[in-house]
């Protein structure tokens, strides 16, 4: 696998191996945030089990001064705190790297490697000597390893202590304990090893316009900003934190100051079927409503999604994808629901879908999704994934235009209905394939029957072929016309154009960008397009037309994006090739380079 070997200051990978449920998550978050506050570009990937307590869990931190935040599987230093996973954790550090481990118990010879440096710190013993109570000892062990890393990696101790002060401002005893623990680790390491290591931190100024947030929190905030009032859901990993976030931001921004009551309604449904039904019921009434879920939830919702498509009820669905099929690997990421979301439900259906690449786009596309759902009166998907949704990402600060006016689509007002002679729900009066709708309770003339059974353009039940086909044809044109309204593809072109093109989607973006830059340094110039919306705009087809070979990079086994491109454009099947990666980890540069390598001869360059 090709990779850079120049690691050092502000450029390395750290892997932390701990036991799930021991409180390491907050210590790891503390580390990540400290590096971010030092102004150094950083990314954190939580690799956790589907378990509450006891199984191995990992946290990967990548520090990269150039701002590349894709996952990198090259770890220069591994912190091995979990004997159960020692074997694989120790194996994962690159040659010449460091292994920081708990030396309270001697490391068995079978784990020893002679091409890496072992740094033993008796974390458990230090905490047992210094703290009382088993729970406190376990928790403080995490802070002790933070202290050790502060010393080894030259992390700014003032930044870390400042964060502890903020966190425990009202809990003096916890602050004291944390300070003791962090210095325990720090002092031990300073005393026993040469500090810092060649891989270390140096303060930079590269993060001041950025914030750190998860995609699910950003998506939830987008729902609040879009004016969503009804959220229905059934708990599921990795989508749960979308609704947690929505509740949090609603409690902050949506409490009626006079009555203390909620300007929102969150319904925890009995299953995903009900959650979808609730969203559709609320959408029918004219509320902006959404449900966050993952692949298994979308599977259950498909019946209702077909209803919303056919009866033309605005509704927004967030699919935070995880590794399928079936229950699959609930805590691993994947892009396995692309085809599912595009065509969910039986019969002829097609849906608008937006594909964010990071939390910033989760926020923006959440807002856009409600506009699109209402303008086109149809189910609209925001297709995110576990990596984007649950990991903390460094993103440019979110912005909001206070002149924003939501696009509520064609909704007839009471006055318009009063003046109208008659109202027919599915009549394409304007010739743009979108019929005006009415909201229940507004005016007697607006009444009609919303139904999933066959209907004609007047909204009446029908079993007549021509009347049925007329509506179905309009629906097809309506959804296809959304191609120009979904976010345009993100394009990166070489001057003069390349014969080789890359296409990717969602969170693959960052590894592809990094791989593309790597290729450029080696003299291989490739064009790149990131799909951001479905149905595809003409620009997507044009991009394929303009290249001899187009490599589609995506995270599923079945080349779903490639298939979607073949189905929805006139692209030649031979032209499109795939690089797939579906083991459950966020994509890394090396996989892209490996996948692209066979096609580089087209550019007459060889890239090592």
């Amino acid at each position, binding site marked *: 696998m090709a990779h850079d070997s120049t690691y050092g200051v502000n450029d390395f990978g750290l892997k932390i191996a701990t036991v799930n449920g021991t409180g390491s998550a907050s210590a790891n978050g503390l580390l990540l945030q400290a590096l971010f506050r030092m102004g150094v570009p950083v990314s954190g990937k939580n690799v956790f089990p589907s378990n509450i307590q006891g199984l191995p869990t990992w946290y990967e931190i990548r520090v990269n001064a150039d701002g590349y935040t894709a996952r990198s599987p090259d770890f220069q230093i591994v912190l091995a705190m979990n004997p159960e996973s020692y074997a694989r954790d120790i194996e994962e550090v690159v040659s010449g790297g460091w292994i920081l481990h708990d030396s309270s118990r001697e490391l068995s010879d079978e784990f020893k490697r002679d091409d890496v440096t072992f740094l033993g710190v008796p974390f458990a013993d230090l905490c047992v000597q210094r703290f009382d109570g088993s729970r406190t000892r376990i928790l403080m062990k995490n802070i002790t390893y933070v202290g050790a890393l502060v010393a080894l990696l030259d992390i700014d101790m003032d930044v870390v202590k400042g964060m502890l002060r903020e966190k425990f401002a009202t809990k003096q005893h916890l602050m004291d304990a944390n300070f003791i623990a962090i210095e325990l680790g720090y002092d031990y390491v300073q005393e026993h090893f040469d500090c810092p290591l060649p891989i270390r931190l140096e303060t930079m100024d590269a993060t001041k316009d950025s914030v750190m947030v998860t995609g699910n929190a950003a998506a939830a905030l987008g729902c609040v*900003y879009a004016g969503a009032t009804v959220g229905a859901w059934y708990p599921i990993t990795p989508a749960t934190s979308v609704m947690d976030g929505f509740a949090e931001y609603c409690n902050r921004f949506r409490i009626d100051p006079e009555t203390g009551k*909620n300007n929102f309604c969150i319904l925890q449904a009995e299953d995903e079927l009900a959650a979808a039904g609730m969203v559709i019921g609320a959408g029918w*009434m*004219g509320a902006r409503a959404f449900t966050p879920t993952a692949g298994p939830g979308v599977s259950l919702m498909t*019946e209702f999604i077909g209803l919303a498509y056919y009866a033309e009820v605005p509704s927004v669905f967030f699919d935070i994808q995880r590794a399928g099929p079936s229950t699959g690997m609930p805590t691993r990421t994947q892009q396995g629901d692309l085809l599912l979301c595009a065509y969910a439900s039986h019969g002829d259906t097609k849906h608008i879908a937006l594909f964010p690449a990071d939390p910033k786009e989760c926020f923006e596309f959440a807002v856009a999704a409600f506009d699109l759902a209402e303008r086109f009166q149809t189910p609209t998907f925001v297709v995110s994934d576990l990596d984007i949704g649950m990991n903390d990402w460094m993103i440019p600060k979110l912005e909001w235009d206070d002149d924003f006016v939501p696009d509520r689509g064609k909704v007839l007002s009471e006055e318009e209905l009063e003046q109208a002679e008659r109202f027919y729900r599915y009549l394409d009066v304007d010739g743009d394939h979108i019929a005006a709708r009415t909201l229940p*309770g507004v005016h007697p003339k607006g009444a009609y029957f919303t139904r999933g059974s066959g209907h004609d353009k007047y909204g009446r039940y029908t079993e007549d072929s021509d009347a049925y086909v007329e509506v179905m044809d309009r629906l097809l044109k309506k959804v296809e016309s959304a191609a120009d309204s979904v976010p345009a593809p993100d394009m990166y072109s070489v001057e003069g154009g390349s014969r080789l093109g890359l296409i990717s989607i969602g969170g693959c973006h960052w590894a592809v960008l990094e791989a593309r830059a790597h290729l450029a340094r080696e003299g291989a110039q490739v064009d790149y397009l990131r799909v951001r919306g479905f149905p595809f705009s003409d620009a997507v087809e044009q991009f394929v037309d303009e290249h001899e070979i187009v490599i589609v990079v995506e995270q599923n086994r079945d080349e779903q994006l490639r298939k979607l491109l073949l189905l929805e454009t006139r692209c030649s099947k031979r032209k499109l090739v795939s690089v797939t990666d579906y083991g459950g980890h966020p994509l890394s540069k090396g996989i892209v380079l490996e996948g692209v390598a066979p096609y580089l001869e087209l550019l007459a360059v060889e890239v090592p």
Partner: protein
Amino acid sequence: MSYITKPSARHPRLPTNALGLTVRDYEGSMSTLCAGCGHDSVTAALVQTFFELDVEPHRIAKLSGIGCSSKTPTYFVSQAHGFNGVHGRMPAIAAGANAANRDLLFVGISGDGDSLSIGLGQFCHAIRRNVNMLYLLENNGVYGLTKGQFSASADIGTTSKRGEVNAQGPIDPINLALSLGATFVARSFSGDKKQLVPILAAGLRHNGFAFVDVVSPCVAFNDHPGSTKSYAHSRSHMHEVVETDLVPLRAEIRTDYAEGSVKLITMHDGSVVKLSKVAEEYDPTDRRGVLNHLSETGARGEIATGLLYIEEAGADMHGFRGTVDRPLVDLPFEGLCPGGAALEELQREWR
């Protein structure tokens, strides 16, 4: 089946209600159900109820799932918004719709297939959630549209039209609703409009999930001697335990009632439901007592009818969720979107 328009001619001297509307204004399109279907009588009772309650037609939201019963919302109040959803999932649509616009009058029509088989879970959870709606279960013990299979409400030993005998125990929706904490539970018969109309009226006034199980015979597949959901069986086995009357808001209660014989329940909107005991020692506000009574009478093969249980003081879904009184759909965007300054401030915490 095609869309059938009813002639709009009406008798010039038809009585009008407080809104100046006649009973015809609460009708829908022509029923396409079988002649003599119990469901059509339920529809007629609903029409009468809406008329009597002076309901503005367009303030009604009528919902249903799939099946014969679910076709009926088309047959009443054509000026109401209707939603014919998917099989067994009407309660979810109703919950979401009610969450968005709590000011409308929600009426859900379902059948025994809808509520007790494919949608049993949704039915149960709508009760737990106490969605403010009138929920009818038009109960005939069979699947009509698919030609006569037993439903989950078919009693043991009943026979199908083809002669099969049902061996599986039934799900009793009344027992189920009571045990799940339903706040309004009634049973009636499609053939007894006099009993049904006041129950429906009280149900519409109830703040919460008003459940009405209406035995509504299927003339095509389940109106034969081997059925316990036939007209004949229903008429001979039904016993009214409580007589219901709704005293509208503007009427004054004048009569003094003998202590113990009558219960007056003040509804959320101030109207009063008058419950007169027929069965001795029957208390429609004592859940455990009602369950015991139903268990005893049921063992004798009797079908107790009337507004069997009522509890008016509880919170509905909005009460549980703490939602504002104003319908969410009426909240202006400006008040929902926190704006740029708030975003700036929030993001300081993301550093």
